[in-house]
Structure formats: structure tokens, C-alpha cells
């Protein structure tokens, strides 16, 4: 399956929100640690560490993960050292490619505060808003539960970080409406989709194992649909996320309309170099450059 050295003569570069990316691949937030950076040299077009929050978060007690058919459910609970500790360690993520930072807060004000802090940090090329976290001011509904709260949080962040692109990461539920709201509030790009709410049980023990988000190849067709539908109604670039495992998957997301593609859970089970190599072979065969692929379907269904 692995095709090495397929990158010669293939144009992998894309542009995202004015930023030139060496390849269209980006690690999905929360799936690439500092310790694993050595393994991914040359693969990605931008770096994107785990979501950070205003204060330290310990995260959820174990069990935090469970395997499911062609996927997994996680409930990590945004474990992170808080934005200040995060920024102290950020240099480790400098691989000579743009660094995107994912943020999450409990309130609109916390989101805006995080954006203000990042606005002043030159190492940060773009901010990704993780809107799949609970809005404590709205009874704990997630920020992307509806267009109104999406618009509110994006507008506040827009004002707080006028000089850097803002990417808004959405969950599948209501994704088209929420995408429109994010765009009209000033988002420069949309990451589609985050994990899908899910639950796993242990029947023998008769207990809940993990209540969290489903990721991995199982959700790929759902994510593809979201990317296809969203990129049909917004003018800002879409970044695909959800179940990418192979170079063909990367191509599928780009054909569906994505400008760049995130690799998440698959990086736990494959060397992402293989994904890039396969994608390069695909480009070679198709005779297209990565930048030409976005939305380049030959026929569109009724």
C-alpha cells in the first residue's frame, strides 16, 4: 500500500487564508503531541496543537477512550496547561511551518480573551475556534449548538484578533447554518467537522464506558457530506476533518470542496508520511496540483 518517493514533480502546495502551505495536510487539534513531532517532519503544511483554554484543565478521569467499529470515542476533557503554559511550550511546535492555535473557553468573553492573547504572539499564524465545548452562559449547550451563539462568539473573536485569520471549527449537527453564521460574523475559514457525540457501553459490566465524541474512518462519509454541503454555500475556505486515513481520503475531501485537510485519529495508527505519499501518487495519476483539486468534481449529482 505504501508508495514512497511519489512526491517528485507533484505540486502539493495550497494557499489557505492567504497563508502558503507546503502541503494541504494539517494535524487535527488534540491528536499530535510534542513528543511525536519528530515523526511528522515534512508531512504537514501547518502545525495545530491541542486546544488551549484560559486556565489549566486537568481533563476527565479515565477511561477516556474506547474503540468502536472503524473508529473511537474520546472524552479527554480538553486537558491542557492553560494558555500561558501553552504559549511557554509553543516553540517546541516550530517545525518551520505556520502554527495555528486552537482555543476554547467557557464563555464568549473567554474566547475573546484567548484571541487577544494570541493576537500579540507573532508565532501564531491563525486561530482555530473549537466551538464544540459547552457555553456555560447557555445552560451548557455547546457554542456551535446554533447560529446565534456561533455568530456571537465569532464576532467577539474577530474583534479581538483583527490581524490573523480565524478558522471556526464546527460539529456536524446544524453545520450548514452554523457555517453561514460563522462566515457572516467574520470567519476566514471553517474546519468541518469535529467529533460526533457518541456513547460506548460495556454490556458485561453493565456500565457506561465513555460518553464523548466519535472520530476515525467511521465518520468519514458524514464529514464528506458536511464539507460538500458547507463549501457549496460559503465563500471562505473549508478545512476537512473526519476519518481521513489515506491519500485517497485526502483527495475525496478536497474534491468535496476542502482547501486543506486535517489528519486526526489516523495518525495514531499510521505514519502520516504514508498518507502524504499516497496523496502525491493520486495527484500524479490525476495530473492535477493540490491547489487545483478543491471542488474539482467532474459531475455533480442532481
Amino acid at each position, binding site marked *: 500500500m505504501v508508495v514512497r518517493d511519489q512526491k517528485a514533480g507533484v505540486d502539493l502546495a495550497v494557499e489557505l487564508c492567504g497563508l502558503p502551505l507546503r502541503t494541504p495536510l494539517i494535524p487535527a487539534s488534540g491528536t499530535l503531541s510534542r513528543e*511525536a513531532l519528530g515523526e511528522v517532519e515534512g508531512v504537514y503544511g501547518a502545525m495545530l496543537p491541542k486546544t488551549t483554554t484560559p486556565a489549566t484543565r486537568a481533563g476527565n478521569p479515565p477511561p*477516556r477512550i474506547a474503540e468502536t467499529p472503524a473508529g*473511537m470515542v474520546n472524552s*479527554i476533557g480538553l*486537558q491542557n496547561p492553560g494558555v500561558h503554559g501553552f504559549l511557554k511550550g509553543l516553540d517546541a511546535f516550530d517545525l518551520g511551518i505556520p502554527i495555528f492555535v486552537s482555543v476554547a473557553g467557557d464563555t464568549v468573553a473567554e474566547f475573546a480573551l484567548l484571541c487577544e492573547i494570541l493576537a500579540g504572539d507573532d508565532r501564531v499564524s491563525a486561530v482555530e475556534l473549537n466551538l464544540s465545548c459547552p457555553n456555560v452562559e447557555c445552560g451548557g449547550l455547546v457554542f456551535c449548538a446554533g447560529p446565534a451563539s456561533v455568530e456571537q462568539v465569532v464576532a467577539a473573536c474577530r474583534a479581538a484578533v483583527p490581524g490573523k485569520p480565524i478558522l471556526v471549527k464546527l460539529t456536524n449537527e446544524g453545520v450548514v447554518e452554523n457555517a453561514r453564521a460563522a462566515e457572516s460574523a467574520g470567519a476566514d475559514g471553517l474546519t468541518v467537522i469535529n467529533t460526533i457525540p457518541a456513547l460506548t457501553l460495556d454490556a458485561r459490566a453493565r456500565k457506561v464506558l465513555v460518553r464523548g465524541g466519535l472520530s476515525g474512518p467511521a465518520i468519514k462519509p458524514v464529514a464528506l457530506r458536511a464539507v460538500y454541503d458547507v463549501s457549496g454555500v460559503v465563500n471562505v475556505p473549508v478545512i476537512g476533518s473526519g476519518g481521513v486515513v489515506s491519500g485517497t481520503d485526502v483527495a475525496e475531501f478536497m474534491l468535496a470542496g476542502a482547501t486543506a485537510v486535517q489528519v486526526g485519529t489516523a495518525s495514531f495508527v499510521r505514519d502520516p508520511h504514508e498518507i502524504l505519499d499516497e496523496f502525491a501518487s493520486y495527484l500524479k495519476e490525476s495530473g492535477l496540483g493540490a491547489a487545483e483539486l478543491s471542488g474539482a468534481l467532474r459531475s455533480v449529482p442532481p
Partner: protein
Amino acid sequence: MKFYGVEVEERQELGSYTLLKYPWTDGPVEPGQFVMARAAGYPATLDPFLARPFSFYDYDGRMASLLFEVRGRGTMLLDLASTIEVTAPLGKGFRIEPRLGRAALLGGGIGVVPLKILRRRLNAMDVPHDVFLGFADARPAAVAREFPGAGVATMDGSAGTHGTVLDATDSLEVYGAVYACGPNPMLAAVKRAARENGLCQLSVEERMGCGNGSCNGCVVPVRGGGYIRSCIEGPVFHSDVLAW
């Protein structure tokens, strides 16, 4: 994470466990280190999706061996596979403290696995030690023959002492160092029993998503609050570190 496809060169039953050898020449293996492993077939088949963690059972510079218990579908498929995919050695193993005197090695069930390399190291360093192994019953206990002189206990009394691995020991207080691996409740009990000891290291068993620190799935609670990853900071921890 990078996986290497390797041929299974030998497979054998040890009690109710499976021993599996594959060629591995890429550097040494510390006692307590592990690999992520799965049956080959990926990505033609995307299920089961994740690899599974296994401690090294043995390593001779040419061949690595795993010893495992078939629990679910990951181990079921591994048990049948002629080609498997493995990572390089991962995690922090047991740190041997030769100056602390006599050591106790405790294994619970499949937790015996890392004790074989550990014991060889202790022998090489002339550290005196005793091995105690606990099992559910006599079938898995058959693996104890690989640990000559080990004290054995079974929960049903069908082999060795009737009870847990701790029932096979007199008192852990006579030991300068305690090294244990097994299910987490056993480790918690060992930690309590070894309270007064200078060194008690525990190899914990948490579900792992990645094995390289990326998913934050494999955490254990630590004293003072919070969680740390057992695949990077562990899987072997000084018992003081754990909030158990």
C-alpha cells in the same frame, strides 16, 4: 505513528497465553517497555482500528517476543496473524535501583510479562530478588514455569497458595525495592502493602489510543491533582506518583 510489518517467526502456547516471536534488531528493549501491535491487513481493513499495547516479554537482540492473553477482537486477530505490525519500543520501563537490596517482583495474571526481562537484568546486576505470581486459576499459572522459584498463588486455589499474589508473599516490608505489574486493583494493593518501602514501581494498564503521547487517552491520576499519560511518562510509575 510508524508501524513496521514483521513476520511472526514462532508462536506457542504458554498456559492460556500465546507467545509470539518476531524479528527485531532496532535497538535494545528496557524491561517494562511496550509496543503497539496489531494484525496486519491495514488499511484494507479499518476495523479494529486501533493497535493494542503489549509489554515486551523477551528480547535477545534478534527476536522480540510478546506474551498475551486473548481478551477481545484485537488479541483474537493477533493470535491468528502470520504478519503483524508493531511500533518501536515505547514508554519508560522499570528503573533498576541495585543499591536498594533485595527486590520483590510481583506479577498478576498477564502482568507477569515484563518481569522476565526485568529478572534477567537483576540477575546480570547481581541484585537478589524473589518473584511472586498470582493468577485466576491453574491454567494461566502454567506460565510460572518460565519463572523458576517463583511463589505462586491462584484465586481459586487450583495451584499454589489460595489467594492473591500478595498472599504468596510474607511481607513486602523486607524488600528494598518492589516491582509490580498487573491489573490496576492489584497494583493499588501492592502499593498499600509496600508503603514503607524505599522503592515501589508499578506498571499500570490503561487503555491506549496511540502509544506516543498524542491522544491523552491513557492517563493515570497523580498525587497533587491532574493526570499524566501512561504511554509517555509510564507505563511504569513510582507508586508515590500515583493518586491511587
